[in-house]
């Protein structure tokens, strides 16, 4: 009984992540690469993502403290961030990264700062949700 409940819970959690737009099709691609030979692939790559992106966030925070803003450097960081987000299917995070890059292109200081707050928010939310998801599905 409990096993069925857990399975249902996993399914519900997973579906809601997609329905609410946190994840997109690319996440399913990752899941398809997981099999008996690679049973933890999704969790491993997601863990790497959060490790890398946390470092990138710190780098961007530092860069945003140095005026005049180095938009080239900021754009490079966000290009990395966006690439990784896209590769794991982190839809909302990726979209916020794109917004940030727009403000970079426009050389808009305030815009960048605000956009980055949203990137951090979405990043933190996704981290929380995926941690919960992986706990349930372990």
């Amino acid at each position, binding site marked *: 009984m409990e096993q069925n409940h857990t399975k249902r819970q996993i399914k519900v959690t997973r579906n809601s992540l997609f329905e609410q737009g946190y994840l997109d099709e*690319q996440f399913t*691609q*990752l899941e*398809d*690469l997981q099999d008996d030979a*690679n049973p933890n*692939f999704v969790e*491993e*790559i997601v863990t*790497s*993502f959060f490790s*890398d992106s946390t470092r990138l966030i710190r780098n961007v925070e530092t860069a945003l403290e140095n005026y005049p803003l180095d938009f080239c450097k900021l754009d*490079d960081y966000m*290009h*990395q961030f*966006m*690439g*990784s987000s*896209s*590769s*794991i*299917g982190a839809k909302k995070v990726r979209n916020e990264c794109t917004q940030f890059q727009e403000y970079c292109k426009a050389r808009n200081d305030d815009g960048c700062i605000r956009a980055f707050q949203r990137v951090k928010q979405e990043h933190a939310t996704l981290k929380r949700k995926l941690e919960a998801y992986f706990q349930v599905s372990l």
Partner: protein
Amino acid sequence: MDTSNFSCDPPKLHVLVVDDNNIDRKLIQKLLEISSFKVTVVDSGSKALQYLGLDEENTSSQFDVNLIISDYSMPGMTGFELLKKIKNSSTFKDIPVVIMSSENNLTRINRCLEEGAEEYLLKPVKLSDVNRLKESINKSGSQHMGQHEQDQSVDCHGPTPCSPEQKPKQNGLLKLDELIATNSIN
């Protein structure tokens, strides 16, 4: 009877992956390994050249590479610059080079194909892309783009001298049409 060396399986194709993004490296590696490629991964164009023995030290390479897959946007040497160096080398010019990029930029795609890229893959790369690539590599085998005339159309940057006269290849233009067709269907 000693059957330890007996194998029905053909030798795996060896791919060299070049990407500065850690997550993308992991993803591509998994995609390729699942598709039965042997994979070597490096994080820069200069390391790729080192591996191939094309760097300044001219270390001879003992590694048999059947395919090179490189990201376009990398710090230092871009995938495009790496592509040019490989296509200008007598040893490696016939090795298929695939460029990956998050940008669906027609000018960029055209440039890469004209420079001799086998394909241009949009990131994030999918299993279907790798499957298609594998089929294409197996089909063409050792036969490759063949002779083409050279005319000057590429812009050069970096210390490498321009190669004389590069003319767009017929095959490259065909690939571009296929790419457009694929994109519009999707």
